[in-house]
């Protein structure tokens, strides 16, 4: 066993003294796919850093965090990109992250505080979106405008399970933030609208496109994909009074062997070269609006004034109780 450890140590050491420094970024799977932002980001950053940028992908945001916890301080990651604000308190509690030391001005709606400010010392945002129910304009005549209206209607929906997917968790927090103690009641009302609950976004969106439900829990920017990539304007997002946000963030590992490169990457992340590829690859709003503006389909229908977001530290306290309410209401 000891020999193996030594051998592994030798290999790692040779890796570290190689001529080109390597910056390892852990991110979720769809970020690095050929259609995600990964390839363009890699090219742009490598052109200016004189380094080798290496993406390592693991499932989604929650899987990333689980993987970091499994690896602990031995992780090869220098930067983790793809956690969201529902996970950052838990991620900060691991003690694996180091402060980024930056104070950027961002175009991320900030329901709790001053517009443009970003106060998290460990994590920086790179994109964000509103959770929303997406429907087909040609098939759904009466679009509900709130959870209550949805519950009272016979409109069918597909949602994701909060235990296995980040949009599912987002919906759970949306209902909790909007209705507080009435959340269980709202879920009980929604029960007969829910066709099924899927393990992840892929299954839910697939079921929706197959016509299994009138609406699916996705993002307010999902219709923009169909509009821009497929010239199909049939999809739209239902506008509710308020929409829960997902803010996707990145952070630097305390155990990184490339601290300067990691800092440079985080600064690059908020620059135009990175931000301008986000809308049409990750189909989310960029954290800093690019100089060229946003593509068609990204204007509306949800306005920043409608944004709600629980502070990360509040999520930790509410999550388990909200999940228990959800399970109890839907298991009846």
């Amino acid at each position: 066993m000891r020999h193996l450890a030594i051998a592994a140590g030798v290999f790692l050491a040779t890796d570290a003294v190689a001529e080109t420094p390597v910056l390892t970024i852990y991110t979720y799977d769809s970020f690095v796919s050929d259609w995600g932002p990964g390839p363009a980001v890699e090219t742009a950053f490598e052109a200016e850093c004189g380094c080798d940028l290496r993406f390592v992908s693991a499932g989604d945001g929650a899987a990333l965090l689980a993987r970091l916890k499994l690896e602990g301080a031995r992780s090869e990651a220098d930067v983790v990109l793809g956690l969201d604000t529902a996970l950052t308190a838990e991620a900060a509690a691991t003690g694996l992250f180091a402060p980024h030391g930056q104070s950027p001005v961002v175009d991320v709606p900030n329901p709790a505080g001053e517009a443009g400010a970003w106060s998290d010392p460990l994590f920086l945002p790179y994109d964000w979106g509103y959770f929303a129910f997406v429907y087909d304009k040609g098939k759904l005549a009466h679009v509900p405008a709130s959870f209550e209206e949805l519950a009272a209607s016979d409109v069918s929906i597909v949602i994701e399970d909060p235990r296995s997917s980040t949009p599912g968790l987002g919906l759970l927090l949306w209902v909790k933030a909007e209705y507080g103690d009435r959340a269980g009641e709202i879920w009980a009302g929604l029960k007969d609208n829910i066709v099924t609950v899927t393990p992840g976004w892929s299954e839910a969106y697939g079921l929706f496109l197959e016509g299994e439900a009138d609406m699916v829990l996705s993002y307010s920017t999902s219709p923009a994909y169909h509009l821009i990539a497929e010239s199909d304007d049939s999809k739209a997002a239902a506008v509710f009074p308020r929409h829960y946000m997902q803010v996707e963030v990145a952070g630097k590992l305390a155990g990184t062997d490339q601290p300067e490169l990691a800092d440079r990457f985080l600064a690059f992340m908020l620059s135009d070269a990175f931000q301008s590829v986000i809308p049409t690859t990750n189909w989310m709003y960029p954290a800093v609006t690019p100089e060229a503006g946003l593509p068609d389909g990204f204007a509306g229908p949800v306005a920043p004034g409608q944004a709600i977001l629980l502070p990360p530290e509040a999520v930790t306290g509410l999550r388990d109780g909200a999940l228990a309410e959800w399970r109890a209401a839907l298991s009846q």
Partner: protein
Amino acid sequence: MARGAVAIGRLGGWAAAGFVAVALLAPLAAVAWQAEFARAGLSADWGAVRFTLWQAVLSTLMSVLLAVPVARALARRRFAGRGLLITLLGAPFILPVIVAVLGLLAVFGRGGLLNAALGWVGLGPVSIYGLQGVVLAHVFFNLPLATRIVLMGWQGIPGERFRLAASLGMSRAQMFRMLELPMLRDVLPGAAMVIFALCLSSFAVALTLGGGPAATTLELAIYQAFRFDFDLGHAAVLALVQLVLAGGAAALALGFAVPTGFGPGLDRVVRRWEADGLVPRLIDAGAIALAAAFLLLPLGMVVWRGLGGIAAMPATVWQAALVSVGMALVSTGLTLVLALSLARRGELWGYLGLAVSPMVVGTGLFLLINPFASPMALAAPVTVAVNALMALPFSLRVLAPELRRVEADFGRLADGLGMRGWARWRWLLWPRLRRPIGFAAGLSAALAMGDLGVVALFASPDWATLPLMMFRLIGAYRMEAAAGAALLLLGLSLGLFWLFDRGGRVDVDA
């Protein structure tokens, strides 16, 4: 059995059993070791245990009972396209879950063919979501496996027995009692055990079609323990519960199975006089037609959707296809070596792959490897090995009874002739086992093609398998290209399956 062959067989068997046990149980121990194992409670999980057991029992009974008439019909009828049909009937079993579910929905879903037909004749729509959907999907996946296992049982009854029974003027009922019932008692418990264990670890099917959190299975609870709560101790306890349930089922199945005593025959296919009447013909035709419709319609929809997407697929999909085929072939070789070794000694160990949670094995291996090397660097060998272990139960289920039968029927003769080692393999075993070996190899290859579980955890930035690529396409909204990739996956899986399965049946009138 010959002493020499036994000695070698025993050694290989124990070595294989040791490999399987270490590769699958050490990860479980590693996960438990990370946490305060003893403190984890189970009280909140009884609902999940109950639902898991209930749906698994229903799914297993349905799959196995429906397989009997279908297998009997296939065993005693000859018709054009029979071989192709048997190959195609194997397809649902090897489909990635999401592809199969979308195929099923195209037939049984809200806007599917069935509800369209019902609406046309003036009946209300039926809903697939709920326990009925979970069982339907599990039967869709497992009926083909059960059918093939039972079909082999039927083909294992020497033709001379049927001829003798016919010449003795036995009635159909007598023939069933004397010949077919003993075979079923030998074969069905094993098939049921495999399917039961498979349904126990169901996660995506049960959740997607179950309709909500009432359909929480143990595997989902394990997933939650890892991702939502990051409670490794809880995950390990749940994995242990799953192991005990599957182990209990295995013990029960082995207790029920009664070995058949047909004695040796001349391996010839013989006309089945008792099946000549009009009623048996109609029953058989009905069974085949219904099974074919149930299994092939959803597949047809997968093909139909996929055709348009083939052109939309980027070149990387083809690279991923190559990676998948290569890994599937290596994995198949490993499965066969393990299965043939375990078929003689330590068979029970081979079924471990069914009983341990894939999520726990993957995470445990990650924990074991991480202190010594980068898990990503070992992604390919780990994926191949785990796929081989997960396919092993199916290969073993197919091979073990056949090997035992051949040894029981001809072993003494071969011993008397002093056939050992290579000669025994070449002249006794290979000619009689090539059909099950081909089938087992086909199953293993196809299963390895469709696997997503482990590779996702170890995913390397430099390569991807075809199922992973398909998920990436869906994640990027590229549903059309994903449908094309699904069709490619289906085609390649079936192609590999057919090659091996056909290879095993060359020169043999099946």
